[in-house]
């Protein structure tokens, strides 16, 4: 049964240096507040897992939290490069970043295998390109037809972190809109944290919703606006301007560091983070 606890406490208790951590979200409901808390608490040597690492992973990488990245597409959607990710891969700054690179289909199959407690996932993929020589993929033969397919090792993160719209007071969590690979992330992980926009008395069933019973989660932490600059369907829109602005902020090491110091290290939670951004915008 999930306990409803402050985010700082959830991260302190459940995420340790050296853990493999997946903060998932497919454009929607990206757990930024949880990522910021990892940075504030100075986690190190993390293996970061995500299909589509974007700004929050750029921040974690740039702040030296990550030792390895397992991913399938690492960019700033609609904008371009992730400069901190590139700087780590191209120049080893602030530290070298080991890569385990997959395709989306491979990552999705690996998460699904993890959720299903299987050691590998099977797919028609990874054929013909250069990626197989650079990643963990194997050939598996169908015992009935003799056909050869690709096998990927299951993703089994130490900690899975997702952001959702709502939890009830028992820690049951509901997310809706684009739900991506979040259910699989929670079920594949040894420990799981959900941050939520709000805690409500009762979860109203919604079309297309994913419900995560409280008993598959270790902690539920309120984090209103905790997906910003990503969005929460029904709560707030994507801050497209922020993604564009991030390109310039992240391009320069010093500017990146002072931005992180001011808005993340210099704040204690998502409310203060938003106030800090608002203050900067008002001064501009």
């Amino acid at each position, binding site marked *: 049964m999930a306990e409803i606890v402050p985010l700082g406490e959830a991260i302190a208790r459940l995420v340790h240096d050296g853990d493999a951590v997946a903060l998932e979200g*497919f*454009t*929607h409901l990206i757990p930024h507040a949880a990522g910021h808390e990892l940075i504030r608490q100075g986690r190190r040597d993390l293996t970061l897992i995500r*299909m*589509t690492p974007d700004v929050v992973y750029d921040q974690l990488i740039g702040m030296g939290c990550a030792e390895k990245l397992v*991913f*399938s*597409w*690492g*960019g700033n*959607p*609609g*904008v*371009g*490069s*992730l400069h901190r*990710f*590139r700087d780590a*891969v*191209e120049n080893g700054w602030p530290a070298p970043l080991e890569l385990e*690179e997959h*395709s*989306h*289909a*491979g990552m*999705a*199959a690996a*998460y*699904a295998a993890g959720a299903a407690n299987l050691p590998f996932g099977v*797919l*028609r*993929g*990874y*054929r*013909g*390109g*250069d*990626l197989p020589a*650079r990643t963990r993929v194997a050939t598996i033969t169908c015992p009935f037809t003799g056909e050869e397919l690709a096998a990927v090792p299951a993703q089994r993160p130490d900690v899975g972190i997702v952001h959702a719209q709502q939890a009830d007071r028992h820690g049951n969590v509901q997310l809706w*809109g*684009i*739900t*991506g*690979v979040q*259910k*699989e992330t929670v079920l594949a992980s040894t420990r799981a944290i959900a941050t939520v926009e709000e805690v409500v008395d009762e979860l109203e069933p919604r079309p*297309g919703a*994913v419900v995560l019973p409280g008993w598959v989660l270790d902690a539920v932490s309120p984090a209103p606006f905790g997906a910003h600059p990503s*969005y929460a*369907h029904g709560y707030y*829109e*994507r801050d*497209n301007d922020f993604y*564009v602005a991030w390109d310039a902020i992240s391009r320069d090491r010093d500017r990146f560091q002072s931005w992180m110091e001011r808005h993340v290290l210099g704040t204690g939670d998502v409310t203060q983070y938003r106030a800090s951004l608002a203050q900067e915008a008002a001064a501009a």
Partner: protein
Amino acid sequence: MSRNGVTADEVMAVEAARRLRDGTVCFVGIGLPSIAANLARHTHAPECVLIYESGTIGAKPAELPLSIGDGELAETADAVVPVPELFAYWLQGRRMDVAFLGAAQIDRHGNLNSTVIGDYGAPRVRLPGAGGAPESALSARDVFVMLRHSQRAFVERLDFTSSVGENVRVVITDLGILEPRDGELTLVALHPGVAVEEPIAATGWPLKVADDLRETPPPTDAELTVLRGLRTKGQDDSRH
């Protein structure tokens, strides 16, 4: 760049849209593919089915999405499915008629690189990576590539093969149209006002030119009106 008041992006979007038939199921990314598929949906192919990687099946956005995960895609979709289901049942399940792909580099066989420039272990430029491309290239019936023509992009040898070209049916560039002929991408059409020397000069291998080289019909006023109506609703820059 604009010829006769029509931008290169507009010509590319129109050429791609024309290749979609009514009812075609398209796997689209953000940017030109999304524009092209929505143009088709608003002109000759109202039943064209748009599927985005985020799991939105049959999305009918009134405005062009800025990301593949825009809320409007979910709100207007016939169904929103989990991402593992999208790749397993819908892409690998061979439900996609057409997948649009872009890349940093293409070779004469339609193989694409969206991974690195330089050596994988010590890249000069680390690109975002392949994402959904490798399996789209294998499992979609037809792959349409949209890519601006340049020596940097159309290369003799890829720095890295992210996806294979076996299902590439057409490459739509800002200069013309390439299609596979005898296993090699061949220039089969030029956009209005483009000289044959331009794509040849912008290709890093000796580009074959079809004997029956034709000119693409210019975008019609009707196409441009719809296209520009679409574009003004979104933002100017919507790369992915």
